[in-house]
């Protein structure tokens, strides 16, 4: 189990389309991946779950992954959340 807190600093923010992309990124991995804010914890492979997370800009999100490819999953999601551009 690997956990990492990330501040959302993506230049284009997190709009619906970006969430869909993020879900696709997470779905590539076999690990179970969860995203947490202060009040919610959702499956990162679920588009509806990610939409209902409603994170604010600059909010901290905790990514947690469990499985063989957890390290790669967490680092790719971290890069995604903090990317300067698409």
């Amino acid at each position, binding site marked *: 189990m690997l956990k990492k807190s990330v501040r959302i600093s993506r230049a284009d923010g997190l709009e619906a389309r970006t969430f869909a992309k993020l879900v696709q990124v997470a779905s590539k991995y076999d690990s179970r991946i969860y995203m947490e804010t202060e*009040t*919610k*914890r959702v499956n990162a492979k679920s588009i509806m779950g990610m939409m*209902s997370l*409603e994170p604010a800009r600059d909010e901290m999100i905790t990514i947690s992954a469990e499985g063989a490819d957890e390290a790669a999953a967490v680092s790719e999601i971290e890069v995604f959340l903090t990317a300067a551009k698409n």
Partner: protein
Amino acid sequence: MSVVRLNELMDKMRLTNLTPEIDPSRIKIRQPDINRPAIQLTGYFEHFAGERLQICGLVEHAYMDSMEEARKREIYSHLLSFPIPAVIFCRNLEPDQTFLEIARETGTAVLITRQATSSFMAEAIRWLNVRLAPFITVHGVLVDVYGIGLLITGESGIGKSEAALELIKRGHRLISDDVVEIRRVSEDTLIGTAPEITKHFIELRGIGIINVKSLFGVSSVRDTQNIDLVIELEDWDKDKEYDRLGVADNYKEYLGNRVVCHKLPIRPGRNLAIICEAAAANHRQKLMGYNAAEELYERVNAKWKNPQDLDED
């Protein structure tokens, strides 16, 4: 942890603010319990739950009326020095000027309502209990099947949403797809709702998002439902033993409450919606006092003990 802001309570219970200089949206209520401060007004402050809402009715108001001015100042100052979120007067009984003056000094909101004390307390406690209930989000689909709240869980892509869609087509109702917010409102009640943002939507892989309410009508959705039964979908595992009789119930725990849970192995050709429907109907029948597995068990046992009894039937 859940928090209710005082302005939300004011909107819900239609309360009037007698201390308008205090902003109610900055006051947080963290617990659903309330207190009637009658005994504190007499000067007894041992065991005082000073972080609760304080509700004053006829008794408190009449006693306050009978107090000497100096005594009022002493008692009110002591009472309002606690971190009380708000003092609420019922039956439109207005507190005296001294009370309001000290409340303004200590920054305690004073509210008033027309409602009678007992019914106001009952509704306030009920509402606060729901709003402040322990809360989690789970990955699953919640459907109302014959009045039984059925939570379908399982890995992404196993077919939860497809099962829900077929259940809806068969006349059952969707509460939430993919994300279910569960609140524990009492020791035996868990209530599930959809997050406001994804309410009435289902995601079908390959099709995208569909709006169940506008496609299938208002009778195909429901806002909240208790969680009575859990069905856990998983890939069929040859080496695993699945329940064949259903005599002993298995349970899944959410927020400390146990819910009956069936593990359902998936295999091509199994019609999930019909199995879910049968599970819900069977659960209902168990609640009504009949258990098919037990009857089968008894028949087999009876035959074993007295083989001729059954043969004669």
